[in-house]
C-alpha cells in the first residue's frame, strides 16, 4: 500500500504539481513551436510521453546496474580484474553521455516504429520527430531518476522511475494541448505586433503557470487521504 501511495504521489507530482513545462521549464522549445493546433500538439505530447518512458526504462536499468556509485556490475568487474578492494570503480562520470545516446537511440527506434506502422502520422510530424532528441524534458526525467539512485539506502525502483516518466510526459501533453487550445483562440485576437508569436505565447504560459501553482500542497492532501484509505 505504501508503494502504491508513493507511486501515485510521484505520478501526480510530475504531471500536475511540478509540471515539467510550467514548473521545471523543460520542453519549452516544442511547447512554443508545436502548439499551434490542438491535434498536432496532442500528437507531439503522446510521442514525447512514449519516448520518455522508453528512455526512462533504459536509463534506469543502466544507472541502477552500471552508472551509480556502488553499482553491482562495475563492482563485479573490479573484483574480477583484481582491483584494490579498498577502492571502488565509479562510472557515474559517464552518465550524461550514456543518457543522451540512449535518448537519441530511443527517438530513432520510435521514428522507425511510427514510420512503419503510422505513416500518415509520421508525415505530419515532419522534422519535429527527430527533434524530440533535444527535448529537455526527456533528459530531465533521466536526470531526476539518476538523482534518486545516488543514496544506496533509498533507491528508486523501476516502477517509481516509470511513474515519474509517464507522469511527466502526460503533464507535458496536458500543458501543450492546453496551450494549443488557447493559441487557436489567440489567432483571432488583436495581439500587439511585437508580441505576436512567441511573446504572447510566453505570457499565456506565465498565466497558466500561475494557475498550476494552485496545485501546491496537493501532495500533502493526497498523502493524508491515501493514508486514511490504507488505515481503513
Amino acid at each position, binding site marked *: 500500500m505504501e508503494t502504491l501511495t508513493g507511486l501515485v504521489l510521484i505520478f501526480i507530482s510530475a504531471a500536475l504539481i511540478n509540471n515539467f513545462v510550467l514548473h521545471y521549464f523543460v520542453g519549452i522549445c516544442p511547447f512554443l513551436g508545436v502548439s499551434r493546433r490542438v491535434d498536432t500538439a496532442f500528437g507531439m505530447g503522446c510521442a514525447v510521453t512514449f519516448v520518455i518512458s522508453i528512455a526512462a526504462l533504459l536509463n534506469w536499468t543502466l544507472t541502477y546496474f552500471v552508472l551509480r556509485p556502488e553499482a553491482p556490475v562495475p563492482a563485479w568487474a573490479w573484483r574480477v580484474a583484481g582491483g584494490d578492494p579498498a577502492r571502488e570503480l565509479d562510472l557515474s*562520470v559517464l552518465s550524461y553521455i550514456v543518457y543522451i545516446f540512449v535518448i537519441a537511440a530511443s527517438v530513432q527506434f520510435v521514428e522507425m516504429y511510427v514510420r512503419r506502422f503510422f505513416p500518415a502520422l509520421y508525415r505530419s510530424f515532419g522534422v519535429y520527430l527527430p527533434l524530440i532528441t533535444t527535448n529537455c524534458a526527456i533528459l530531465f526525467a533521466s536526470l531526476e531518476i539518476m538523482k534518486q539512485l545516488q543514496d544506496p539506502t533509498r533507491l528508486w525502483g523501476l516502477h517509481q522511475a516509470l511513474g515519474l516518466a509517464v507522469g511527466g510526459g502526460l503533464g507535458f501533453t496536458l500543458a501543450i494541448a492546453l496551450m494549443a487550445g488557447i493559441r487557436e483562440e489567440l489567432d483571432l485576437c488583436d495581439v500587439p505586433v511585437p508580441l505576436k508569436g512567441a511573446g504572447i505565447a510566453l505570457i499565456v504560459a506565465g498565466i497558466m503557470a500561475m494557475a498550476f501553482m494552485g496545485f501546491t500542497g496537493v*501532495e500533502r492532501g493526497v498523502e493524508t487521504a491515501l493514508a486514511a484509505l490504507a488505515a481503513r
Partner: protein
Amino acid sequence: MGEAPRRAGYLAQAWLVVVLALLYGGGLAAVETLVGGRIAENRRQETYAAIPYLVPGADPGHTGELLLVGDDGRETKVYQAVGPAGEHLGWVVPASGQGFGGAIEVLVGLDAELGTITGLYVLEQRETPGLGDHIRGDAFRSQFRGRPAEVPLSVVKLEAEAEHEIRAITGATISSESVANIVNQALANLRGPLARQAGGGG
C-alpha cells in the same frame, strides 16, 4: 553501388566516433580523478559542517557514521557526534518528509542520552519563498533547541507555552507543522535503535 562497399563505408565512418569516444572517456576519467575527491568532500562537508551547530562542542573531524535499521524497517545513516577528546556527545539524525511545496530534508541533533533535541538544520526545502522558507531561518530553528526528544512536538499559532510546543511561522503554518512532524517521525523511528546502539554497542 553494392551492399558490401556501403557497409565498409559505414564502418570507415564509424572509426572517428569510436576514437573520439575513447579519447573523451579517457579525458573524463582524468577529470574524475582530478576533482572527484573534492566533490565527495564537498558532499560530506554539507552534513559535517552543521554538526558543531547541532551538537555543541562536537568536533566534525571525529564524527562517526553508522547505518541503523529504524523501526520502520528501513536503513538510515546516522552520525555520532564526538568531542575533541573522544567523548560521545550526541547524535545527528537526518530526517525527511513532505512539506507544503515539496520534500523537506533536515538534520536533528540529539544529546547522548536521547532526551533533548540540541539543534535543527534544514538541508533541502522547496517552500514558498518569503513565507515557508523562513523554516531555514534561525528564529524558527532555534525553537527546537532544548526541546524534549521523548514527547512529540506540536505546533501552535500563538505563544508556545508548554515545553513541547513550537510557535508556527506567521503565514506558514503548514510548513512549520511539516517540520515538526518530520522531526517527530524520525525520533519515533530511530529512538529504539539509537538507544540499543548506545547501550549495547561499542
